[in-house]
């Protein structure tokens, strides 16, 4: 081993485009009127986090391009409360799998952002650990969610100094939805990749095909479809149901995008057939600059003031 530090790959790229605020339909009053207030309880928790990386494949057949953004919603900005959404992703040690997670802290809990952090970080780490021994289709999701819940309970008890708190008492303070996806870094012989998704609560996973007639394909039931009035009930870690929803396997083609999102985006997207679906499908035909991606995730639309988080995964190279 020489003494030089090995660098990453590099390529010539366009200068970064300027970021412009995005509005879809009526932006509403809040988008222009709200002055963001800090949350004095959690001064070091940023309102916006974003990331953009390329996961190199093992051959020229390609890899994956990832964009991720999590933004504090207008409502939390207005009331001076922290962002409760979180994302996380990592590549397994053998570089075969990308593990992605999105979590939405349950609003009622003052420390739900901690639950969301734990779900995404501990969840991805544990899944990556399990993938050294089993294929994604054989993942023990009960074990993953059970262990993640145990960490939430342990951390909340320790951090809030509530050693005797039972599961319900912990969940009242810190709870989060949990969405995980496992994607193969390399395409299979057919040129596509199998995606495995587990979703607890109303965070949602989608396949996006900008060029097809049906652009947005949900990988789970759409929230509130067919309900007379809207409901906001949702399942969340650490109170996991005895019977988990079944994991979903889907195929990510070379011209598709895997998109994971919290309901801050998902509620506005609905079934994906309206102007939000159109707008985002156009914006995400190709991986945008990460700053623009964050701006797109933060689109202004009347009454949609919840935290917003999206992780999108493009197979690369994109079809020419």
């Amino acid at each position, binding site marked *: 081993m020489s003494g030089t530090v090995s660098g990453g790959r590099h390529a010539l790229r366009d200068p970064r485009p300027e970021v412009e605020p995005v509005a879809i*339909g*009526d932006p*509403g*009053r*809040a988008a222009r*009127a*709200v002055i963001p207030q800090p949350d004095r309880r959690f001064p070091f928790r940023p309102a916006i986090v974003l990331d953009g990386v390329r996961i190199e494949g093992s051959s020229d057949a390609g890899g994956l391009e990832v964009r991720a953004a999590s933004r504090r919603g*207008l*409502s939390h900005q*207005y*009331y001076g409360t922290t962002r409760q959404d979180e994302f996380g992703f990592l590549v397994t040690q053998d570089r075969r799998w990308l593990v992605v997670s999105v979590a939405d802290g*349950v*609003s*009622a809990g003052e420390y739900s952002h901690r639950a969301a952090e734990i779900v995404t970080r501990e969840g991805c780490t544990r899944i990556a650990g399990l993938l050294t021994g089993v294929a994604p289709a054989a993942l023990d999701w009960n074990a993953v969610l059970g262990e993640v819940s145990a960490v939430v309970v342990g951390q909340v008890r320790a951090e809030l100094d509530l050693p005797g708190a039972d599961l319900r008492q912990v969940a009242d303070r810190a709870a989060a939805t949990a969405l995980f996806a496992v994607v193969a870094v390399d395409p299979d012989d057919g040129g596509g990749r199998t995606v495995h998704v587990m979703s607890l609560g109303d965070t949602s996973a989608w396949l996006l095909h900008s060029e097809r007639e049906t652009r947005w394909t949900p990988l789970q039931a*759409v929230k*509130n*479809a*067919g309900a*007379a*009035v*809207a409901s*906001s009930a*949702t399942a969340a870690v650490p109170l996991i149901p005895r019977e988990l929803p079944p994991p979903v396997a889907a195929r990510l083609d070379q011209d598709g995008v895997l998109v994971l999102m919290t309901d801050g985006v998902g*509620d*506005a*997207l*609905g*079934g*994906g*057939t*309206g*102007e*939000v*679906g159109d707008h985002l499908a156009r914006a995400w035909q190709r991986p945008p600059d990460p700053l623009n991606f964050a701006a797109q995730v933060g689109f202004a*639309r*009347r*009454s*949609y*003031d*919840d935290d917003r988080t999206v992780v999108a995964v493009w197979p690369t190279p994109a079809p020419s």
Partner: protein
Amino acid sequence: MGEEKAKLLPFYLVIDVSWSMDGPSIDAANDIVPSLLEALEQNPILSDKVRFGLVDFSDDARVQLPLCDLLEPNLFVPTLSTRGGTSYGVAFRLLRKQVELDVMQLKADNYSVHRPVVFFLSDGAPTDEEHDWRSAFAELTQYDRQSKVGFPMYPNVIPFGVDNADPVILQSLIHPATGNKQMRMFLMDKGNTPAEAIKAMAEILISSVLSSGMSMANGGPGVVLPDPGQLPAGVSSFTADDEDFL
């Protein structure tokens, strides 16, 4: 399903305009909407989603302000005046029709609609037949989730009683009366004037719209009523099983 334009929180204020409300009471009632409007102007998060409707009733019931965005630029807020008896039945029937119409229209226009909230303000006992207003109230509020029989858009009902309102009757109008989304009623304390009590109730209504809106905006369960210990002077709150006021 497609996508939704916005998530809306509908509130209705239903005001008794029988003769006995004449004078300072109706003046105080007429101040409620302008005060709410002022509060919403200060809160862009809520003004983006609160829809408000005003209904008055006497021997007949009238929609005085159809469910609307109170901050619409050309909105005209009507002034209520008194006009006759106190028929609860006509108020409940109109509400049943209006809530259904409004929610269906909003849903047809691709809005997501939260369960409506009705603030029901009265200063006297109903002058119509009990079986009549009771059955009208049941049609407004009853819904069976299993059989899907009844009115799925049933509102939460929060009665406000002043002056000669019958506490026992108003108590029976609290909806839901039980369960984890139990509502409460607010009554004028003995010795207070109706106009002062209505002003206090306006405060309660505004605080409830603001905190319910904040709760729902944050994915909370819905209607938030002020803590019984935090009420303005001259009014008290009761649940459907309280007996303190008897």
